[in-house]
């Protein structure tokens, strides 16, 4: 009996074992490789991010962020930010971790996005790294610089300020500046441990200052009288008011405390009765306090959501602004939920109490007024191009929502023009801006300064841009936020 046949069969079985191994190796290194490389537990990808250059970020033809070789092994590439503090609110930082656009566009900048890897599938196949894509922003770099300088100069020492400009027709953000800011160069990969320490320091901040949290998109302030634009719009939509309706501008006794809601002045239009337009221009608190009382906090809250209040406005995939709010209730010091009362409702109507808004949110309010009631979704990235200049993404403007009718928007725009022409901001006459001032008190008893606003649009006729400027310090919005807005808009309109 020969054993040749079984030996041959065992030989074939041994071959099958090898075929099994070959198939598995092909499966793992061929089709599974990409998933393995990006597996969340895989530490290689994190160490890897410094081994290849990231894409550039540019705005207005100016390159703002680039990767540069360090000449060292680890990190092989550093990151350089031109005018770091000026553009930090938009670019964020990168040091392995990232914030803002560096985070939101991490996979495109790092060359790992499917849109790049699929285009260069052969490179991926042979294991060659795809180059990162470049971002082109909607930001106007000169205006952004002006905004930064102005905020720096006009904000009280140790306090905060922010400014936002939006193209009302598209939603493109032209300016998003913050004071204070931080220099992403100080925490970039090439700084090593020193940078890590600096980042910790920045994260801790001092006093109310949190340099890593920008004051344009990610920080809220009480909007004060600038919120009257929202209150008016809701009242017009709901109660059929118009700009020439006669409204009471005299004393308003708050129903719960029995105290009067003070006006900044009791002369002129605020002496008893006036048209809504004039009451708005001279910012009579009582008129808008009464308006809020009449509609109730729920209506005020619901109406404000049409402007984007109550949710985090999405700027880019994975990049959101902070939430602006008109709360119907709040949590007190003991952790109990307390509904906003009547007095609180009246104060909410003039942007006080617990109403909070980001400069971006108030710019959206102005944008609705300037753009016939429609709000376009704000965005910062205009185009994404691969290294070979092919376009991977081009922003297409889309609507965030309709806040009011075209007619009411026109009337509110007129009311805003009146503020500069004959109201609280006559100091800005002839500066091609119209808007609403706001001066919110933030507990003067504990020494907190005012939150000073100017929210509006430019140019005065056929508005193209909406803006909002907020700074903290003594004095009012007309004098301390208005000129900043005018300076920024002068730069924006120059283009």
């Amino acid at each position, binding site marked *: 009996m020969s054993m040749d046949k079984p*030996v041959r069969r065992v030989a074939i079985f041994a071959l099958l074992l090898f075929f099994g191994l*070959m198939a598995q190796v092909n499966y793992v290194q061929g089709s599974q490789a990409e*998933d*393995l490389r990006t597996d969340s537990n895989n530490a290689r990808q994190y160490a890897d991010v410094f081994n290849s250059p990231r894409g550039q970020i540019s705005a207005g033809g100016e390159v703002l962020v680039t990767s540069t070789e360090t000449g060292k092994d680890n990190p092989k590439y550093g990151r350089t930010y031109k005018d770091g503090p000026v553009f930090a609110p938009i670019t964020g930082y990168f040091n392995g971790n990232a914030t803002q656009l560096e985070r939101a566009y991490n996979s495109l900048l790092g060359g790992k996005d499917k849109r790049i890897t699929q285009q260069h599938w052969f490179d991926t196949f042979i294991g060659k790294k795809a180059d990162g894509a470049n971002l082109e922003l909607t930001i106007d770099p000169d205006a952004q610089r002006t905004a930064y300088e102005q905020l720096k100069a006009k904000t009280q020492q140790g306090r905060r300020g922010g400014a936002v400009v939006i193209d009302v027709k598209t939603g493109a953000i032209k300016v998003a500046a913050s004071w204070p800011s931080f220099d992403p160069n100080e925490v970039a990969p090439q700084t090593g441990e020193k940078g890590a320490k600096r980042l910790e320091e920045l994260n801790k901040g001092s006093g109310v200052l949190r340099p890593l949290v920008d004051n344009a998109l990610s920080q809220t302030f009480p909007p004060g009288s600038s919120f009257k634009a929202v209150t008016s719009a809701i009242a017009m939509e709901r109660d059929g008011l118009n700009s020439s309706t006669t409204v009471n501008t005299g004393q308003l006794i708050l129903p719960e405390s029995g105290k009067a809601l003070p006006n900044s002045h009791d002369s002129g239009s605020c002496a008893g009765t006036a048209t809504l337009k004039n009451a708005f221009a001279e910012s009579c608190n009582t008129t808008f306090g009464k308006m809020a009382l009449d509609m109730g906090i729920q209506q005020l809250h619901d109406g404000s959501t049409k402007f984007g209040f109550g949710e985090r406005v999405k700027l880019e995939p994975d990049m959101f602004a902070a939430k602006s709010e008109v709360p119907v209730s709040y949590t007190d010091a003991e952790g109990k939920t307390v509904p906003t009362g009547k007095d609180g409702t009246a104060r909410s109507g003039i942007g006080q109490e617990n109403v909070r808004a980001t400069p971006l949110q108030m710019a959206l309010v102005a944008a609705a007024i300037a753009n016939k009631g429609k709000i376009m979704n704000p965005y910062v990235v205009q185009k994404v191009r691969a290294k070979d200049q092919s376009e991977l993404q081009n922003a297409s403007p889309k609507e965030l929502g309709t806040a009011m009718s075209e007619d009411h928007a026109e009337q509110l725009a007129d009311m805003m023009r009146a503020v500069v022409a004959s109201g609280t901001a006559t100091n800005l006459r002839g500066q091609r801006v119209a808007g609403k001032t706001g001066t919110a008190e933030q507990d003067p008893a504990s020494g907190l300064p005012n939150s000073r606003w100017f929210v509006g649009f430019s140019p005065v006729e056929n508005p193209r841009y909406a803006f909002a400027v907020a700074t903290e310090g003594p004095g009012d919005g007309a004098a301390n936020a208005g000129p900043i807005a005018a300076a920024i808009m002068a730069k924006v309109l120059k283009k």
Partner: protein
Amino acid sequence: MQSIGDQIRARLPYQRRNAASFALLIFAMVLTLSAFAEVGLARDGMIPGGLVVYGGGLAVLAFIAYFVQLRFTPYADPLLLPLAVALNGLGLAMIYRLDLDTSADRKIALAAGKEILKDAADAPNQLMWTFVGIGLFVAAVLIMRDTDKTDAPLSFTPKTAQRYTYLIGLSALMLLMLPIVPGIGAEINGARVWIRVGGFSVQPGEFAKLLLVVFFAGYLVNKRQAMSLIGKKVGPLSLPRARDLGPIMVIWFFCLGVLFMQKDLGTALLFFGLFVSMLYIATQRVSWVFIGIGLLAMGVFVATLLPFMGHVNQRIDIWQNPKPYFDGGCLLESGKVVPVNPNTEIYKKFDAQDAISPGASACAELGGTYADSAQLMKGLYALGQGGVLGTGLGQGEPWRTPLSFSDFIFDSMGEELGLTGLMALLLIYALIVQRGMKTAVAARDPFLKLFAGGVSFVLALQVFVIVGGVTKLIPLTGLTTPFLSQGGSSLMANWILIAILVRMSHDARKPAPQAIQDEGMTQIVSTR
């Protein structure tokens, strides 16, 4: 009817293929030297000094081996030696690459008085074992004589071993048991498969593997007639007699013993698979294969049910679903896996108490069995990093995988040589196995057939178990990767294996001895 072996023998040219062997050996050396050059160029930007020491050393040894083969076994299979040299050379280059002591950067850093942790990859040691391994190959080829000289006084041939079947079986058993003996045995990396002799750690299992093949071959050659011919026929299968089942049960119990006591699923699988395949070769009865597989499956199933064998269960669970076990996972009674990695609260709690293994302590508190899939996953990440063409030798980060120089050297190869390199390595293994099988077919003696078939299959099975393990085709168990893994025992045993195949292939392929007298010329002398 002519058997297949006869047909192959009839067609064999009985040519000496030494030129082919020499050319292939040159190619294997070029491959190895290029690998060393690439490591040096990638790491330090220059041709490394190691190229001369390691590559040169290997070249000299390989050519000595070649000349011994040329002189003493001229009809040997031409592929076996060059293939083994190529594997050994590439493995050496990989270990050289992983041993950071050999890089210029490190030498400069050490000269500057910086303290650097020693890594466990040890290229000089591996070079030494390569010397010993190839030395053993040469010695074995020299000592072993052709099987037709078996009866000559003082001659040792592959067939001599048949006389000492049971003695060899006993020594294989003893070798396997040695690591369990306290004092000599040592547990390294969680497996108790080592003994310490002098300053060296030896894995006796590697040698026991060869001895077991001899024992199985000797035993089965005697019993195969009875085992294959007598038995009841049930359907298509013919069942063996109970008394013939005895030995297979002994081996089965023995393998399970290894599994239980040494916690070494890989070795158990290897020996049992070897035995079943040799049984099949000897008896040609498929029923043995089914019985064998059935018994093994039953054994493993029982093992998963026993509470103190929880790790077998877990190995299978890790294999199917490794992610929750990354950096430590805890399999609860309910079958749920709770992560106890360093990011979890419970880990931090035990870490704060200075527990030696916070993950394991945390798992003990949760009442589950602890395991860590980080090794396997990191090995797979290495493969993923390599992709189709690999990062290039010296340009990847294989050091990120634990045991990248031993159990996971195949993954390290995969990272730097890519899918392409791994396919080449697997082809080399497959070729060695197939040449071994061919030798078995060509062999004239039944014992030698079983012997050659057995050693070839055990090599295939070992590659399958370890490579399948590190590529997640089957549950991971620790075995050495033949010729690649760092370690002397494995290199020595495998070089002896190649020597046996070389000698046997020479034996099978050489021309049959010519009759001294021609029948026609014979004078008939009448004494009448």
